[in-house]
């Protein structure tokens, strides 16, 4: 016969405390903030002046339709695919997850806190990039704001899903950074990060549109231009979320 102990999972207060701690960890890791917040701004400044003069469609300039979607996608991709898995791998390698594993905290709670902090980080990165685009280069809001917000939410989930796969397969923090960066650059290259997908061979450009980076850029571009978002891109992002969630739930480990 066992003791009478009610199975009480830590609740919202505990999750909020964990989120606060994760946020402090991220904020105190200043080096980790440079790439997701600084690199997109660099791209914005390097292409903003020329792109803001050239109207493409519906009064939206090349800055709105091409540069901003790329910059926002980069913010989400770096945070989801590179930063988050390297944090998780460090937690696992250092034994932090193992230590949490002997408390009532669940793996889901740790992942949820990481995801929420990542979303906050991405929201700040996106807000900074959009503010700079609007204030410094006369950027315009998306023609379809609701669609743009929906695409951002779906894309963030998809980038995290890719990050979860990286975290699941990477044995060490270093390998998590390496695998994350390789995944980021492959997805980015195929998604038009280095000069647009038009310059890629047709099959690679086609594949790039199916992958989360290219799908996000194209979907955001459509939202900014006010044209219909291609269902293929939304399917690609949703599929990535499903695959990443399944892999993470099957392979997540405390050690």
């Amino acid at each position, binding site marked *: 016969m066992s003791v009478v*102990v009610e199975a*009480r999972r830590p609740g919202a207060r505990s999750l909020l405390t*964990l989120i606060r701690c994760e946020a402090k960890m991220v904020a105190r890791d200043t080096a980790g903030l440079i790439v997701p917040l600084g690199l997109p701004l660099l791209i914005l400044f390097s292409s903003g002046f020329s792109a803001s003069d050239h109207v493409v469609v519906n009064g939206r300039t090349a800055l709105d339709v091409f540069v901003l979607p790329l910059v926002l996608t980069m913010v989400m991709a770096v945070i989801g695919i590179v930063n988050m898995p390297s944090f998780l791998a460090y937690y696992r390698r*250092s*034994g932090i997850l193992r230590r949490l594993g002997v408390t009532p905290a669940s793996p889901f709670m740790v992942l949820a806190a990481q995801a929420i902090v990542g979303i906050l980080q991405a929201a700040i990165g996106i807000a900074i990039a959009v503010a700079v685009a609007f204030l410094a280069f006369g950027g315009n809001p998306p023609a379809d704001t609701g669609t743009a917000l929906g695409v951002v939410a779906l894309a963030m989930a998809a980038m995290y899903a890719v990050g979860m796969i990286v975290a699941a397969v990477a044995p060490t923090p270093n390998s998590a950074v390496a695998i994350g960066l390789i995944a980021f650059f492959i997805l980015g290259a195929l998604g038009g990060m280095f000069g647009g997908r038009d310059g890629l061979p047709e099959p690679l450009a086609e594949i790039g549109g199916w992958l989360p980076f290219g799908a996000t850029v194209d979907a955001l571009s459509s939202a900014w231009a006010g044209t219909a978002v291609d269902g293929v891109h939304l399917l690609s992002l949703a599929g990535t979320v499903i695959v990443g969630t399944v892999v993470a739930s099957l392979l997540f480990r405390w050690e």
Partner: protein
Amino acid sequence: MTSVEPAILAENLAKSYGQTRAVVDVSLRVDVGEAVGILGTNGAGKTTAVEMIAGLRVPDRGRVRVLGLDPRRDRARLRQVLGVQLQQAHLHNALRVTELLDLYRSFYPDPRSRDELLDLVDLTAQRRTIFEKLSGGQQQRLSIALALAGHPRVVILDELTTGLDPKARRRMWNTIEQLRSEGVTVLLVSHAMEEVERLCDRVALIDAGRIVALATPAGLVAQAGAATLDDAFVALTGKELEEAE
């Protein structure tokens, strides 16, 4: 729970890592409110045995119950009443002492207060210090405080005072004695004879993955016909405990 039901029951535990048999056959019963020490040399299987009891490792064979709960199947329930201090303290290194205490306290329905925990492990002066800036001994003490955060009914302490200075060691011993007075069951992995003699009702000597003797400290000395527990350990295991970590 009846009075005869043990706090910890381990039956015929075995665990191998590849070709290495870390634990061959360990059976142990610890009654409610009892303190039992586990002594053994480096690599004897102590940590693997207690990690199976804590539910951190799945035994290849055997059965574990802690307060009647299966550490794997009843994980959520057991974690609320079991406090574990792991051999090495691994915590969020960029968080302050109070932030870590608040985080771990938040996991439990009825946690000890932050000030009580700071006082228990004498870290009040370091409350604002970032974890990675603490000395090794201070990190160890914080790890112990976190193990006690949820008012556990059973605590597993792996190398409780390793790395602590004599003053901090005595402080920890007083803390464990206070826990025992509250009826908490203690399973203590150690290689400090003085520690287990002072704190434990019974001591299990573990060698090559098996418990080779289990008795009161005085009983082990008598069983070995030795003068001290140190000598008894050598006589019963054929090894010097100084070889331990």
